[in-house]
């Protein structure tokens, strides 16, 4: 098990800079998920840790040893590819045993190790099959088995379940979590699926354009996004974002979206904004809809309803902007229904309109 440290890592492909000064420490036994859109640099970061990609500058240390100039095979890490990368001409057993055979370990040792890993992953009955005869889930189990068999210092996974169908993905997600808890291996996991990230990670690293946007525990990233990008990338449906004018700062302040009547919020919630150009970010669950005119509610009509079973997503228009609200299922039947909208000021986020950075209240 190992601690992985990236310091000032830069990577250029030709003149394109794909990693910009990446600094990250992954603690021993930690499960870190790198989250971002495709092309954001998360896979490049992972491949740089693995040694499949060189870095242009900066250092990567694994357990205190600088590895950026070492070959992948000398870094003692395992890698699970999205495409599984099983050797097609070998049986499952030979595939799992490959990393052991490559360093010519004894046959007896090999067999016992392969058996143990296969038992752990529940793939013993598949050992004599070839990869082409396996389902997607089993292929990935074999790929994980091949990674685990050599007891690597760290396990790196590049969208390992991205190629599976939705149901299998959920199942494999749970298996990967169980595996991590059982083995307590240092794991770095790359995905673009924020649900995977939230459910697996000890810490999430959100990347965009080669820059780390935020590093933190899943709830921290969700509840306190560092900037607009993180706010809109994490969470489903995405956070509502609208330009907002803040008026008054006493006991009661007004948040005005477009030309609409303002939302009345306690002045303390917005006092730190100092009247700068601001964007309001509010998650659908903090947009409260009622059937009756309540305190500070603005009257409007529903424009769209998405029933999702456990809850509905209801769209309303406020001052030319669409706000999406999460309501109990059956709250609205369709568009054009009259509702009153209010916001939960405790769960409202404010972002600097120019830089996109979060403007959090001090303390």
């Amino acid at each position, binding site marked *: 098990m190992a601690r992985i440290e990236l310091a000032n890592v830069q990577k250029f492909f030709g003149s394109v800079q794909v990693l910009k000064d990446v600094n990250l420490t992954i603690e021993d036994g930690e499960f870190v998920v790198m989250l971002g859109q495709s092309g954001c640099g998360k896979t490049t970061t992972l491949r740089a840790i693995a*040694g499949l990609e060189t870095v242009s500058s900066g250092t990567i240390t694994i357990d205190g040893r600088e590895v950026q100039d070492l070959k992948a095979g000398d870094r003692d*890490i395992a890698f699970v590819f999205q495409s599984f990368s099983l050797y097609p*001409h070998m049986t499952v057993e030979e595939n799992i045993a*490959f990393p052991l055979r490559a360093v010519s370990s004894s046959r007896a040792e090999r067999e016992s190790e392969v058996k143990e890993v296969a038992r752990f992953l529940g793939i013993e009955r598949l050992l004599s099959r070839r990869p082409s005869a396996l389902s997607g889930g089993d292929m990935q189990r074999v790929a994980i088995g091949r990674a685990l068999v*050599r007891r690597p210092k760290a396990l790196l996974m590049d969208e390992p379940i991205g190629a599976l169908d939705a149901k299998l993905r959920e199942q494999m997600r749970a298996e990967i979590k169980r595996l991590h808890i059982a083995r307590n291996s240092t794991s770095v996991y790359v995905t673009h699926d924020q649900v995977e990230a939230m459910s697996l990670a000890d810490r999430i690293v959100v990347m965009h354009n080669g820059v780390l946007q935020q590093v933190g525990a899943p709830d921290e990233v969700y509840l306190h996004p560092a900037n607009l990008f993180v706010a809109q990338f994490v969470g489903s449906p995405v956070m509502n974002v609208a330009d907002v004018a803040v008026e008054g700062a006493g006991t009661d302040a007004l948040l005005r979206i477009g030309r609409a009547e303002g939302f009345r919020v306690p002045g303390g919630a917005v006092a730190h904004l100092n009247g700068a150009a601001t964007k309001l970010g509010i998650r659908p669950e903090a947009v409260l809809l009622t059937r009756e005119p309540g305190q500070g509610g603005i009257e409007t009509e529903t424009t769209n309803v998405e029933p999702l079973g456990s809850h509905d997503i209801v769209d309303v228009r406020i001052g030319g902007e669409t706000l999406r609200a999460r309501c109990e299922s059956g709250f609205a039947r369709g568009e054009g229904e009259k509702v009153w909208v209010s916001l939960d000021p405790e769960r409202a986020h404010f972002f600097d309109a120019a830089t996109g950075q979060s403007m959090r209240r001090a303390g």
Partner: protein
Amino acid sequence: MANVMTRLEPDTRAAARGLSDLTIRNLFIIPTIAFLIIFNVFPLLYSLWTSFTDFRASTTAPANWIGLENYRELLSDEFIWRNFTITAKYVLISVSGQVVVGFGLAMLLNRQIPMKGLITTLLLLPMMLSMAVVGLFWKLLYDPSFGIINYFLGLGKFEWLADPQVALYAVAIVDIWMWSPFVMLLSLAGLSAVPKHLYEAAEIDRASSLYTFFRITLPLVAPILMIAIIFRTMEAFKTFDHAYILSSQPTTELIAIRLYKMAFLEWQTGMSSAFAYIVLIMVVAITNIYVKYLNRAKAR
């Protein structure tokens, strides 16, 4: 027959141009089949028949049916067996040489190098030449007194073609020079079809480059390499042109040369037909062994 013929939908372009399936059949398929029957099927069957006779194309004497006599005589002829041994040796040297050189070149080319397209094309040139021409100029290259090969290798007046022990190798070298590019081309296709991520996986798995080559590259390229070997073996078996031009040593008398002499110098038409059939059966048998292996490799 006509009622099984599917008619074209009236609004398709072919129909608009007035080509019905029937016209296509009459215009293209019938002439092709007729051509095949006249020039391939008929000679094949006719030569099968002559192989059971004492027919000689140089005389007007009628052919007499002698049954398996030709085959019996050929298979018990010590000299014919020597031709077979020479040919087997030649095929082995030539094909294995082509595989080593061709596959090696393919490995070198299977990476990002400048002017890769041009280099590949230049390497393919020998394959595009006429075999007789190749034979003629290699004869000059091999020449003991003014040949450039002896000059460069500093071998003095080394006899490439006149020395009975060396001549077969000299002929095989020409074949290797000419046909390695073919193996290279197929190997290159096979190599570039091996997914890059398998190499990455092997790298992560701490496999050395030699181990990766023998455990991953070679098994995955094996099926297509096998196809190249099948083609080359079949071709090498019937090598005639450059071998005939280069050397007239008894040690380089391949079966095709023996067959030529038997058919067109000695005019033993019936006997040579039988000989040709024996060669055919051997080539089919060897090819079958390869194809079996190929299918097994592909099944994985």
